[in-house]
């Protein structure tokens, strides 16, 4: 390409980008609001009161900022209610927003005085500036005082039909606010119908907010309010292509309740939703995946299903390069997805291998998925990984890794022997908690495959003295009791445990009892009989 030049300077772009942006923002300067947090010696409230009633605009504005600062640090400034509300009638948008914020916080504690604000609210809701109209209904909806709510209805009715989409999208959410405060009012005044009309609005953002509001109202109502017809469905799928990323999430989440009539409709929906898998917003991707999975239940053609599975795998894998918190949510979802559709990620187990710097909560979830995806084909590699993890430092993670080996042994019969040999290798390292955890899982392996691996018992017995956790002790005792006839000195071993019998926790005591009884039944000699007596 001719017109594409290489830059001369090749220092890494990040650095350059940073310089560029700081240059551009240099002039912007950050604020110095922290001064409003400082207090003077003279009683704070009386002083603020005086300033709020100052004849100078700037002084009043500063005073309101101080009030908000005080509110922010948790001081009660509700006694200034009348004075603050008096500052509400102003051309200054910043000041107006601050007064509104104050009202949201304190109107509830001063319901009788809140009525003072109503006139300005109603006036603002008819302001020529859409920003102010929207601000007025948005704020009124947040004030949960009956007297204000009564006066909200008319402005809201108007704003739902406003010319400006910014006002309409705010009004749409406001209906949900009103429903939360007074559901009857919403139903009586016909707001639900107006809200449903907004589904056909020509502005995608308005549609998205109307969907969010309707979905919430539906959730809190017993009757059918928001039923998605095939007609609405197609409208919403169109809006999906145009609205903001957050709006896309609302729509996808709402549509996940939709039940397609048949396989064909389901296929059509899926086709319209799949492009969302390419979106940079992880939430859009996950919501799309959810919706596709739901529609897949109806799809009968195995080809289509296989194809969809293939399409979903790469986006799911990419989620693992997102921020760790998002990775966590993705992993929790993937955990469920692989249970329903194991084929989707069957070949991707490697992406779940833990990285050194993964936060521990991500590692734990990855481990869980590795167990689910482990198969005869990949088990050797998986075991190598588990073994690596079992020598890390985080105790919980190490334990989980050891347990994971055991769970794989139980899940994959043909790999059980390899799993056991890894466990034995780990026991030989003689790290106390690794040994104990290993013994716990080996007990489960013995239960799953009886009379198969008892040759390793001798090795286990070597670690007998180091066991100090109840679950590990109980497991070891169970093993001894179960295989008492093959262990020559079973009675001695159990006896050593019996010495501390009274101090042991219940689960160990119980295992000791059953183990001694088993021993007695298998080797009905004097020793065990005495031991049983000791136990009682």
């Amino acid at each position, binding site marked *: 390409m001719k017109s*594409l030049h290489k830059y001369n300077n090749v220092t890494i772009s990040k650095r350059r980008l940073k310089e560029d942006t700081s240059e551009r923002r240099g002039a912007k300067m950050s*604020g110095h609001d922290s001064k409003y947090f400082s207090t003077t010696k003279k009683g704070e409230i009386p002083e603020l009161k005086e300033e709020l009633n100052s004849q100078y605009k700037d002084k009043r504005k500063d005073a309101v900022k101080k009030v908000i600062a005080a509110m922010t640090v948790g001081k009660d400034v509700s006694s200034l209610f009348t004075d603050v509300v008096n500052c509400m009638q102003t051309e200054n948008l*910043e000041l107006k927003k601050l007064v509104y914020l104050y009202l949201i916080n304190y109107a509830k504690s001063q319901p009788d005085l809140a009525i003072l604000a109503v006139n300005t609210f109603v006036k603002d809701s008819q302001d020529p500036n859409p920003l102010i109209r929207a601000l007025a209904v948005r704020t009124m909806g947040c004030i949960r005082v009956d007297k204000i709510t009564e006066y909200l209805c008319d402005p809201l009715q108007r704003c739902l039909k406003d010319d400006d989409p910014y006002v309409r999208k705010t009004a749409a959410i406001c209906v949900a606010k009103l429903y939360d405060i007074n559901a009857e009012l919403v139903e009586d005044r016909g707001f639900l119908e107006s809200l449903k009309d907004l589904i056909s609005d020509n502005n995608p953002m308005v549609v998205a907010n109307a969907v969010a509001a309707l979905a919430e109202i539906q959730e809190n109502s017993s009757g059918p309010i928001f039923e998605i017809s095939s007609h609405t469905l197609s409208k919403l799928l169109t809006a999906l292509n145009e609205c903001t990323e957050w709006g896309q999430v609302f729509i996808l989440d709402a549509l996940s309740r939709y039940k397609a009539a048949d396989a064909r409709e389901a296929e059509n929906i899926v086709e319209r939703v799949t*492009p969302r898998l*390419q979106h*940079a917003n992880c939430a859009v991707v996950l919501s799309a995946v959810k919706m596709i999975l739901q529609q897949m239940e109806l799809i009968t053609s195995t080809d289509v299903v296989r194809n969809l599975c293939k399409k979903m795998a790469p986006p799911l894998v990419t989620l693992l390069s997102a921020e760790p918190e998002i990775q966590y949510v993705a992993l929790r979802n993937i955990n469920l997805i692989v249970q329903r559709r194991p084929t989707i990620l069957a070949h991707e187990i490697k992406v779940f291998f833990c990285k050194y710097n993964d936060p521990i909560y991500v590692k734990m979830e990855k481990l869980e998925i590795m167990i689910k995806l482990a198969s005869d084909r990949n088990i050797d590699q998986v075991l190598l990984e588990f073994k690596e993890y079992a020598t890390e430092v985080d105790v919980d993670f190490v334990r989980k890794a050891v347990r994971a080996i055991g769970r794989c042994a139980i899940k994959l019969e043909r790999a059980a022997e390899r799993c056991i040999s890894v466990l034995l290798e780990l026991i030989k390292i003689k790290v106390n908690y690794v040994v104990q955890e290993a013994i716990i899982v080996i007990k489960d392996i013995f239960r799953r495959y009886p009379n198969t691996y008892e040759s390793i018992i001798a090795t286990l017995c070597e670690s007998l003295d180091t066991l100090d956790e109840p679950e590990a002790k109980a497991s070891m005792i169970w093993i001894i009791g179960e295989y008492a006839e093959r262990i020559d000195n079973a009675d001695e071993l159990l006896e050593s445990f019996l010495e501390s019998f009274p101090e042991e926790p219940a689960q160990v005591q119980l295992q000791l009892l059953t183990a001694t009884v088993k021993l007695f039944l298998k080797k009905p000699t004097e020793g065990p009989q005495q031991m049983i007596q000791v136990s009682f």
Partner: protein
Amino acid sequence: MAGAVSALFLLDIKGRVLVWRDYRGDVSAIQAERFFTKLIEKEGDAQSQDPVVYDNGVSYLFIQHSNVYLMTASRQNCNAASLLFFLHRVVDVFKHYFEELEEESLRDNFVVVYELLDEMMDFGYPQYTEATILSEFIKTDAYRMEVTQRPPMAVTNAVSWRSEGILYKKNEVFLDVVESVNILVNSNGQIIRSDVVGALKMRTYLSGMPECKLGLNDRILLEAQGRTTKGKAIDLDDIKFHQCVRLARFENDRTISFIPPDGSFDLMTYRLNTQVKPLIWVEAQVEKHSRSRVEILVKARSQFKERSTATNVEIELPVSADASNPIIRTSMGSASYAPETDAFVWKIKSFPGGKEYMLRAEFTLPSVTDEEATPERKAPIRVKFEIPYFTVSGIQVRYLKIIEKSGYQALPWVRYITMAGEYELRLT
């Protein structure tokens, strides 16, 4: 699954409220304390906690950024992915406004913070997080105008990321193709996993509402067009696009068409799963001569073509936490002991392809050890590098067409670079 947030909290590192915004009136400031107690309770170290905490009917989702926690409290069943992603966006917006998001900057700008919280979320539903557009109508003090502002059209437009009427004297687009190589090599030298994550980072200085079309050497596209792929065409495993790209169009015919935001943004990110040969291979031999004397021999080899050169190579070699008296020699670059990370750091400014360099180090360990000690954390060798003018994937920008109704000519500039992402080689 409709679910909205009850309140959004900004907390300091000790869990005290800096600013909070109540959206639904069903939680109170006490929730912040509850949340933090629960966090501490679970285990002293808050950083190791999963980002979702549930307590007594309220779900908390949180992220941490420098010395600030951003947390949402909710009584409803919320979309966790959406909210966590939203919190990250909130961080971006604050950073755009105050350079850095930290306790100080929040205090210094609490008025704007409240304004932004009011605009970004309504009744607990995320609304709008485009920082550049927000700053058109929510300004910091220094730039606040007395004329009343109106909401920019962009807030509700289908093109919600760009305002109309932008004007540049010189119309230019800078495109950086940045690829990070992630690799994990086992202690037996086997590559366990490797992938390449690429990003097309754009900076646009374009007037008006330009229509852009980007052409890549994407195999699927070229084959669909029936072209013989004589150059190298590549397969991209997964592509993620900035919201400006028309996804439905891409799904139909693989065309990447968009009206870009103004300034810098990531146009797309992609991922390749192909096995890549490690660009820089590092081998370490550790010899314990006695209980207290250890010698390490490290070989680093560049496995790319000779015409490329890796720059700013940094190899981090973990050693025992109680190592002392290190003696290090290198055949190239310089190396030093960094006790704070328990590692030797070997820096090589320029590492041409097809070369091999060595490092030999010796250090002593205390002769007495704790028998009961738990094993030390086995850190891997980590490598950082940058290779300019080079991509692993072979991705190429074939063209970037820019069409605006005023008909100006715009110059696109493209640049390629590869760097190490999570590049780990486990030690035996």
